[in-house]
């Protein structure tokens, strides 16, 4: 597998189909991507194993309110404004954020690829109609739209993912469209059309695999921004009720900033590091998947 990993840029005729394994190995080779992967792995481990190794209920009162980290008979990272264990909150608060990030990015990638792919491959009036539609979603301020959706319907993990994913796709659609337009004119696609392979089959089996590299990069970055939107909504108090989320913790303790710095800075740092790991992976993928960029 190792020698088929990365075709030389010269033999890579306008993007040979990217193999999943090769993408992962290439990511490990880029220093930025490796750091990002390690950070994400740490974050996932803390989120999955943390609550088992440190089984404290993040909703329960663990001591007096606003105990600083390291104070005698305080939990390791202190307590928040009502006396909940901050470390337990940090270990449990990533679940919803990561889940919404991935679910929203999956939804927006699906919509973006379908719309961008159809527009780019079919062209003509279908293209202009679909691009108008895309433009419409580009003018909606994502956070405000999500605020409206969450208010009119019930806030829940599913609703948050839907509200973010349904408006986050225009970038994906534009990139997919550009790739499909480029690949559509290549000889092997013309040949496939000439021998009568149905359009849908050509799009899914022949064009999409070659269009994947930039789509993978933008989907990764959307995971990061969806996590930021989830944190923002939770910060505003519009997160999924009954769950702990880093954003909620930050929002709840916001007015204690002056007297208890740890209650605000630590959850924010968790959001920052988690999104940073995704952003580094996105950068690493971009280097790994884009031969032109790698040469520079």
């Amino acid at each position, binding site marked *: 597998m190792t020698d088929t990993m990365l075709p030389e840029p010269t033999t890579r005729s306008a993007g040979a189909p990217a193999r999943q394994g090769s993408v992962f190995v290439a990511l490990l080779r880029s220093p930025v991507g490796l750091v990002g992967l390690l950070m994400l792995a740490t974050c996932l481990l803390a989120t999955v194993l943390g609550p088992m190794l440190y089984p404290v209920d993040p909703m329960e009162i663990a001591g007096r309110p606003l105990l600083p980290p390291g104070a005698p008979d305080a939990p390791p990272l202190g307590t928040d404004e009502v006396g909940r264990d901050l470390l337990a909150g940090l270990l449990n608060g990533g679940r919803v954020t990561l889940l919404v990030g991935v679910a929203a990015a999956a939804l927006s990638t699906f919509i973006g690829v379908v719309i961008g792919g159809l527009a780019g491959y079919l062209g003509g009036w279908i293209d202009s109609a679909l691009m108008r539609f895309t433009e419409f979603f580009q*003018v*909606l301020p994502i956070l405000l739209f999500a605020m409206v959706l969450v208010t*009119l319907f019930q806030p829940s993990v599913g609703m948050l993912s839907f509200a973010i994913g349904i408006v986050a796709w225009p970038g994906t659609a534009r990139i997919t469209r550009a790739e499909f337009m480029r690949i559509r004119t290549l000889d092997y696609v013309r040949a496939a059309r000439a021998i009568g392979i149905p359009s849908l089959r050509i799009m899914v089996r022949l064009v999409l695999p070659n269009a994947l590299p930039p789509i993978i990069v933008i989907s990764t970055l959307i995971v990061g921004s969806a996590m930021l939107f989830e944190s923002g909504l939770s*910060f505003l108090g519009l997160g999924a009720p009954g769950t702990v989320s880093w954003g909620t913790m*930050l929002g709840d303790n*916001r007015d204690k900033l002056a007297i208890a710095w740890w209650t605000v*800075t630590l959850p924010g740092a968790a959001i920052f590091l988690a999104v940073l790991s995704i952003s580094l992976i996105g950068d690493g993928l971009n280097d790994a998947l884009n031969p032109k960029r790698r040469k520079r």
Partner: protein
Amino acid sequence: MLLAGLRRLANAVVLIVAVVLLNFLLIHLAPGDPAVVLAGEAGGTSPEALEAIRHAYGLDRPFMVQLLNYLGQVLQGDLGHSYYFDASVTSLIWQRLGPTLLLSGSAMLFALVLGTTLGVSAARRPNGAYGSGITVLSVVGFAMPAFWLGSLLVLLFGLRLGIFPTAGMESVIPPTGFFAQMVDVGQHLVLPTISLGLVYLALYSRTAKASMIDVLGSDYIRTARAKGAGPSTVTFKHAFRNALMPVVTVAGLQTGALLSGAVLVEIVFNWPGLGRLALDSILRRDTPVLLGILVVSSVVVIVANLLTDLAYRLIDPRIRTGVAR
């Protein structure tokens, strides 16, 4: 030129109509009686009030009639009635629009000016320490939650160092005199502007750096150098304009995100803008105001896109004269 402008304008109007239609759909898709949705839980849930709402929105009439009515009202500037304040939504939003535009505008300006400067100057030695610093800044900036950055700035510059005010748009007792008031608002603007603008500063500096590197490698720059133009003449007279195009594109695409970020920053700094009003409306279940804010901010984005288009034409004479599209 005129024709293209008119086409853009028509497109903008279509987009505005679409946003209004979406709003209308949302009211009807929300679970429960639309009249109750509009009245919220704050006030006006008495049977007479609900009847009044049904009548005002024409909810007792056929769907298509309702839709056209609503559309007509909104396009005339009537965004409905807030039952919480017993005031027109348009007037409530109008009071708050200024502060939001001030905050977003100054964050945009801060990011554009500083970001372009940093990016363009990094392009001369892209792999040096300074150039790599720009790359790091862009990755960090992307991951930084604006509301966290805001809280950190409040903690450091407001509470610990006491340099800048940390809440509101002006002092509790504003100073007298126009100039002193401007300075007062300016001081209150510093921390929110940085909180909101840093992400875009990171983005624009990276975009400007990449496009400047591209432009500096092109043939016409080589020609200019061969003619004996000095480095600063090449950078500013020949390359800068062309390198600016991608930055303007990115900036135009980001207006919606900028307004989203402004919502969060306004909450952190108690800024009296639309974001604050939106959150308060949610807490008061004052749905007409919330929906009105969605319409108005979408219109702001649409207008910003028109302005971006205009900026394009000013920067790139080819678009203006219609040569080589």
